[in-house]
């Protein structure tokens, strides 16, 4: 295996491609999301998206889109210019509950993960139950993203990636 630090930087683009693909899937293939998470009610783009153009000649441009009612046309425009999604805020719903979190492409790190409210901790004995509940709620998101990433990476190393997926994503970015 490659040196970890070298691998982190060399394959950073895989994370950006994953988030770009994920946005495409959210917009175009909700059935795939439901197949990966049977309890999913919805997965939506949340209040923030960062797009970066890192892999082309005139690279370096970064676009940040913020706000609950953000207009994603600007994001599609950035994709048209060759950018990829570098960070994404996502909103997941299951049953009557919702989760919000940020996902970073290059590291696959989760940040600002807010899960449905758990019971109050009033005594030392409550801690164990609270941990079990919190772990269960975090696992919903981590399991979903890990499941989606597994699906993506299998697709990414297959012939279907360039034969089917990339043309479909191009068509979504710039419909003729």
């Amino acid at each position, binding site marked *: 295996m490659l040196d970890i630090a070298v691998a982190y930087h060399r394959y950073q683009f895989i*994370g950006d491609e994953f988030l770009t693909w994920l946005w495409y899937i959210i917009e175009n293939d909700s059935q795939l999301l439901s197949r990966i998470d049977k309890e999913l009610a919805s997965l939506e783009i949340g209040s923030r998206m960062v797009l970066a153009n890192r892999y082309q000649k005139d690279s370096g441009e970064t676009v940040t889109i913020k706000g609950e009612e953000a207009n994603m046309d600007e994001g599609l425009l950035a994709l048209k210019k060759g950018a990829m999604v570098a960070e994404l805020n996502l909103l997941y719903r299951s049953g009557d509950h919702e989760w919000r979190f940020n996902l970073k492409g290059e590291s696959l790190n989760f940040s600002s993960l807010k899960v449905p409210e758990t019971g109050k901790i009033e005594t030392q004995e409550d801690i164990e139950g609270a941990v079990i509940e919190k772990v269960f709620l975090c696992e919903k998101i981590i399991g979903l993203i890990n499941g989606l990433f597994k699906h993506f990476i299998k697709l*990414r190393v297959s012939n279907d990636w360039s034969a089917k997926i990339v043309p479909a994503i191009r068509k979504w970015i710039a419909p003729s």
Partner: protein
Amino acid sequence: MGLLSPTVSITQYRVEGQLPSPVNEHVAAALKKNAIDEIDNEAIEQAVGWTSFDDPYQPDFEGSRFVIDTVWVFSLRIDKKSIPTKVLKKHYNMEVSQRLAESGRDYLSKMEKKQLKDHVLTVLNTRIPATPNIYDILWNYEEGTLWFFSNLKSANEALETLFTRSFKLSLVRMFPYTAGLAAGLSGPDKDCLDQLKPTLFMG
């Protein structure tokens, strides 16, 4: 942001290797051996060690207190003393003036200046308390997974160093390449992963 905070940050790891049996006792001993040392009133600038999740200021790993359900929950504590630059400068200048007055000279050698600075740092470090930073850890030994509740680079690096030293196991951070390798790809597909180049969707 700890495990029970309203919002959390999580870095995922894979733990590779096996612990000697009985594993709970082995982990308890390793945690105890590498528990955080109090450095208040000491000349030490920083300490890194394990502590209890439910009582981070009094590490206690007796009686499998770190076992919750099927996972191990404990914390990494990094205590650090930060001496403000202006405070350091003030005390250093006072020492220099005193040394010059005592020696009757009007200059100090480079070596003398360094010794004085080290002395001032030692004195100040014994006088100021360390600031503790606590990062929670959830380790599922059966699944070979570990969640570290921080994305901070320095904290992740401290975790990786202390974990390997304490448990003699390999801790692999999950990012796109390592997560790809852990995704159950076949041998040829792993080779293909190594050869990947960025996709140009547009542009």
